[in-house]
C-alpha cells in the first residue's frame, strides 16, 4: 500500500429480524455509533462506500436513501457488492481510496434488510448465488446446498462428523449469549443441532446462520489524519488478501476447502509479513458450521482435514491457541450479508483495543484477522489488523 490506513471508528447495529425499522434507520444505528466512536461528524468524511446485496429488501438501490438518511448526501458515489463478502468489499474499496491518496477519511457502511421477503424467495435468491443457467435452473440448488456439497465430501475424506460440525454452532451460541447485539442469544447443545430440521443434508437448521437484518460501519483514515485527530488507539491494516473462484461449483475439481480463501490468506500473510500461527484472534466466515472447520484449514491454523480436531480440542475458544468468533459468529450473531465483513472489523477492533468486555481475549502481539467469504468461495477477503 502507498499509504498506511487505520480503523478509527466502528459501529454495529443490533442484528436480528428488525421489522421495527427500514434499511435507512438500520444503517443510521451503526453510522451514528461509528461517528461518535471516532469523534467525527459527517462533515469530516471525504467519501462513503455503501455495501449492500439488497435483493431481499424493498430498497433494491439502497445507497441513495441510506446516504440521505445518514446525512451523507454528496459523499456516496458508489455501492459495492460481493455477495456474502459485500462488507469486506466495502472495506477493501475504502482502504484503497485512502492508500491511493484520493481520500483521507472514508466511511464504509454495510447494510442489508434480508427478512423483508419470505424464506422460499430468499432461498431462490441464494440458489442463484452460484450460476443460474447451469445450477439453479436445472437442479434447484439452494445456498445451503452448495456448502452441503463441501460438507459431504469433507466428511467422506477426513472423517469429519455431523457432531463435529455441531460443535461450531454450540460455540457460536455460547458466546452470543454475551453479545447484546446478537440475533440469537440462547445456548444450544450438540443434540439440539443434530435433532434440528434438515435443510440440505448434512446441513440442518442449527448448522446454518440465520437470515438477518443489520448494519455495521467502519471509518478508515490515513496516517496523517490519525496523527492530526490524535486517535489514541488506531487499529492498523497490516495486510489485505483477496481472490475469487468459479461460479459453477462443479468446475472446481475438489470440494474440501475454498481455494479463494487460501489464496486470499496467502496474500494477506505475505503483505503483513507474518505466518498463520502468529494470529491470536480471528473472525471466520461460519455461514454454515462446515465453513468454520474449513476456515481453520484454509487460513493455515491447521493442515487440511484437521479443522474438526482444533474445534474439539477447544483451541479456538477464548484464550485458546487462536480465539475465533467470540461475538457469536455469523451463526448466532447473525449474517446480514452487506454488514457481515464490516461487523468482523468492528469485532477485531474491539478486541485489539481491549474493549470486548466479557469476551476479551488476551493478546501478546495484538494480531488479528478477518476472513469473509462471498458466495461459496466465489469471493474471499482476508484482512490482518494490529494495534
Amino acid at each position, binding site marked *: 500500500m502507498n499509504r498506511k490506513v487505520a480503523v478509527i471508528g466502528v459501529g454495529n447495529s443490533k442484528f436480528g429480524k428488525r421489522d421495527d425499522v427500514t434499511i435507512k434507520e438500520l444503517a443510521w444505528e451503526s453510522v451514528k455509533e461509528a461517528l461518535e466512536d471516532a469523534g467525527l461528524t459527517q462533515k469530516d468524511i471525504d467519501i462513503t462506500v455503501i455495501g449492500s446485496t439488497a435483493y431481499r429488501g424493498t430498497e433494491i438501490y439502497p445507497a441513495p436513501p441510506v446516504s440521505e438518511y445518514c446525512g451523507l448526501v454528496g459523499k456516496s458515489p458508489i455501492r459495492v457488492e460481493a455477495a456474502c463478502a459485500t462488507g469486506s468489499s466495502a472495506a477493501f474499496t475504502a482502504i484503497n481510496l485512502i492508500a491511493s491518496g484520493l481520500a483521507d477519511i472514508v466511511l464504509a457502511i454495510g447494510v442489508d434488510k434480508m427478512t423483508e421477503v419470505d424464506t422460499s424467495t430468499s432461498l431462490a435468491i441464494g440458489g442463484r448465488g452460484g450460476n443460474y443457467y447451469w445450477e439453479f435452473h436445472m437442479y434447484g440448488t439452494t445456498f*445451503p446446498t452448495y456448502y452441503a456439497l463441501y460438507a459431504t465430501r469433507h466428511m467422506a475424506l477426513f472423517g469429519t462428523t455431523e457432531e463435529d460440525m455441531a460443535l461450531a454452532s454450540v460455540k457460536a451460541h455460547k458466546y452470543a449469549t454475551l453479545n447484546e447485539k446478537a440475533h440469537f442469544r440462547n445456548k444450544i447443545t450438540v443434540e439440539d443441532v443434530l435433532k434440528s430440521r434438515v*435443510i440440505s*443434508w448434512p446441513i440442518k437448521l442449527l448448522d446454518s446462520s440465520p437470515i438477518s437484518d443489520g448494519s455495521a460501519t467502519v471509518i478508515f483514515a490515513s496516517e496523517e489524519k490519525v496523527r492530526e485527530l490524535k486517535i489514541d488507539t488506531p487499529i492498523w491494516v497490516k495486510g489485505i488478501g483477496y481472490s475469487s473462484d468459479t461460479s459453477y461449483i462443479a468446475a472446481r*475439481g475438489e470440494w474440501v476447502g475454498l481455494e479463494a480463501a487460501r489464496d486470499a490468506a496467502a496474500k494477506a500473510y505475505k503483505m503483513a509479513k507474518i505466518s498463520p500461527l502468529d494470529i491470536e484472534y480471528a473472525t471466520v466466515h461460519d455461514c454454515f458450521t462446515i465453513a468454520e472447520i474449513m476456515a481453520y484449514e484454509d487460513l493455515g491454523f491447521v493442515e487440511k482435514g484437521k479443522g474438526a480436531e482444533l474445534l474439539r480440542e477447544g483451541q479456538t475458544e477464548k484464550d485458546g491457541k487462536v480465539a475465533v468468533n467470540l461475538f457469536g459468529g455469523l451463526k448466532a450473531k447473525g449474517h446480514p450479508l452487506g454488514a457481515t465483513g464490516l461487523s468482523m472489523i468492528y469485532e477485531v477492533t474491539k478486541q485489539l483495543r481491549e474493549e470486548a468486555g466479557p469476551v476479551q481475549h488476551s493478546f501478546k502481539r495484538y494480531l488479528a484477522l478477518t476472513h469473509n467469504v462471498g458466495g461459496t468461495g466465489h469471493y474471499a477477503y482476508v484482512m490482518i489488523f494490529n494495534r
Partner: protein
Amino acid sequence: MDGIPLLFKYTVPDKLYEKFWEGLKRGEIYTTKCKKCGTLYYPPRKDCEKCMSSDMEWVKLSNEGILMTYSVVKQKPQGFENYSDYTVGIARNSDGANLMCWVKGEAKVGKKVRLTTDGQRVICEVIE
C-alpha cells in the same frame, strides 16, 4: 404492512446451447470442445477463454462416472416447491468433466455412477 410485490419474469437464451438441451431430451449429454486448442469444457461454452477462439465443436460425453459429493435438498426454493426431496450431486465422468446432477439410488461418495438425463437435467444413477 405489505410492500408492493415485485415479480421478475425472465426469458433466457435457448438457441445458444440448443444441442445440449436437445441432447437432454434423448438421454445424452453434449458439451463443447475447442477445435483450435482441444480444451474440453463442461458446461458447454460458445467461446474458448484459453486460446480466444470461438470455433467450438459439440461432443458427446461418456456416461461413466464417479460420485464426488452430494446433498439431499429438503427445504426447496421458489420454483421447486412441488418436487419431492431431491439429491443434488457432482459426478466426475471418464472424460474428466465435473457435472452437477440429480442423484438417483443410494448416494455415497466414491460410488460408480451412470450418467443419463430425465429430459430436463443430468441424472446420475448409482451403480450397485
